[in-house]
């Protein structure tokens, strides 16, 4: 399995984000929520406040570090939910076929007909803002892609020899699905999940920016950008750093996912003649 440049760069960036989030309580110079001194508001980057301060006098650098925790949580949890739903539905649909397959397909088509951000917006409208609702909303969008992949993988794996062997041995359906089929499609699923983390972080940022996601004063990178909008002329650094953080982490996830995909199956994009 050759791991190219993409993969390593992506892994590096992702590691940076993870370290930022995990080590935040120890390396952050201030408290992200409570160290807010209006006397210090809108200060440009200097030796005390490495990234400057925002409109409430909070240290931007600290908030960026703590923001990593939120982004990582959102990314990981939403993708776990996505994958669980997608894999379960897709795998069972392909394995059992019949009306269940039709139902899942129909549902998938409907989900694909609604742009994901719009759907997330709708769910947030119902559940109200905040982290838990955000996790649910993002977990419920985009499972349709995972479902499609799981379904087509299962369809082709279903006819493999070892599956049929297990069937003759009397293994139950669920057991076969989870022990024989699932391990063999982990590759593409993992790739989707990694790439999905990037899109989840972007969605969270967008929703928080709109005021519908993580609410202030929690240091979500997206909500930091909402304040930034008002301050853009006076304090552009408030806009630059959170956005940069989002960019670099999503870039990391995307490169990681791309790298995984390229090494897992270099022929994935080759035409089969």
């Amino acid at each position: 399995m050759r791991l190219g440049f993409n993969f390593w760069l992506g892994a590096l960036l992702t590691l940076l984000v993870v370290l930022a989030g995990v080590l935040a309580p120890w390396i952050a110079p201030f408290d992200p929520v409570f160290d807010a001194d209006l006397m210090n508001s809108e200060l440009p980057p200097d030796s005390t406040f490495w990234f400057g301060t925002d409109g409430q006098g909070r240290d931007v650098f600290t908030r960026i570090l703590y923001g990593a925790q939120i982004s990582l949580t959102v990314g990981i949890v939403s993708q776990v939910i996505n994958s669980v739903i997608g894999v379960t539905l897709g795998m069972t649909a392909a394995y059992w076929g019949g009306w269940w397959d039709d139902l899942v397909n129909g549902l998938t088509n409907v989900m694909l007909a609604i742009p994901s951000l719009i759907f997330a917006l709708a769910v947030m409208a119902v559940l109200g803002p905040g982290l838990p609702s955000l996790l649910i909303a993002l977990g419920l969008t985009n499972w349709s892609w995972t479902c499609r992949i799981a379904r087509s993988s299962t369809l082709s794996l279903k006819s493999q020899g070892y599956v049929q062997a297990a069937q003759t041995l009397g293994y139950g359906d669920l057991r076969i699905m989870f022990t024989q089929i699932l391990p063999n499609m982990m590759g593409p699923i993992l790739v989707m999940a990694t790439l999905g983390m990037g899109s989840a972080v972007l969605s969270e940022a967008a929703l928080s920016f709109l005021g519908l996601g993580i609410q202030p004063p929690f240091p979500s990178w997206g909500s930091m950008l909402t304040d930034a909008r008002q301050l853009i002329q006076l304090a552009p650094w408030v806009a630059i750093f959170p956005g940069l953080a989002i960019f670099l982490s999503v870039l990391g996830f995307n490169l990681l996912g791309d790298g995984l995909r390229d090494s897992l199956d270099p022929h994935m994009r080759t035409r089969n003649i």
Partner: protein
Amino acid sequence: MLRFTLRRIWQIIPTLIVVALLIFVIFSVVPGSFAASLFSDGRRAADPQMIARLNEEFGLNKPLMERFITYITDLAQFDLGTSFRTRQPVIDLIADRMWASLQLAIAAMVFALALGVPLGFLAALRPGSVLDTVTMIGAVSGLSMPQFWLGLLLMYLFALQLNWLPSFGYGDGSFRNLILPAVTLGVTPLALLARTTRAGVLDVLSADFIRTAHSKGMSEAKVVRWHVARNALVLIVTTVGLQFGSLIGQAVVIEKLFAWPGIGSLLVDSVAIRDIPVVQGTILVIVLWFLLINTAVDLIYAAIDPRIKQE
């Protein structure tokens, strides 16, 4: 071809119905009494008697089944309900803002196509070159960037610092106002188009019939024009179609950022104040739009590739 067209258009209807159902189910969960407690000037009603009266007015205390039937029959007559806040028919509110959103989406897509496809083509024809590497790095960056952040930066640079373009708003509807939002919105599709065009062209270039074309004595340029382009077009069209989905979603954020008076900002504002009928109606319209685009893409695809029609 005509039959194929009609069949595809016909297939939209069941999906649309299910989506409408889904939307209704999701939003009937919202406590109707809370959602309706708005006066037309936006103030919340606190007095329970007031709330009860408002509920009565909007028919929100009727049983679920009855509400559902009203919903469906209204939909069939293109009545999307009435806004809780402004008491205006939702469909009017949407119609007012439709054109602005269309302008934005089309402008963004044109921008993305005009730059993305040629870049992808050139990158594929010279694999491993500087142009190729730069294009691919640019593409993956474009896909990783939060669009509204880019919008903020562009706004800062071009509007506030350089004063070349207006920083937000529709203004008098002139082209200048469209540039920043369209470019911001178009960056993601551009990145994706560059990438997929490159992959598609590379795929086609390694196909056998390209070798045949070369053996016939065709020059590189002719081969690209006649054989590569047509076959790569299929992939490009598919990508454009897929992109429109996320474009509409992203447009919501961009419209809010640039205070662009389209359906997107209408949706965001309505969600913020829990103006449920407007939210429902807007989502339905957006979904319809998306389905229509997809069907159009399918039709173009079938027109280009003769193998598809034989279903």
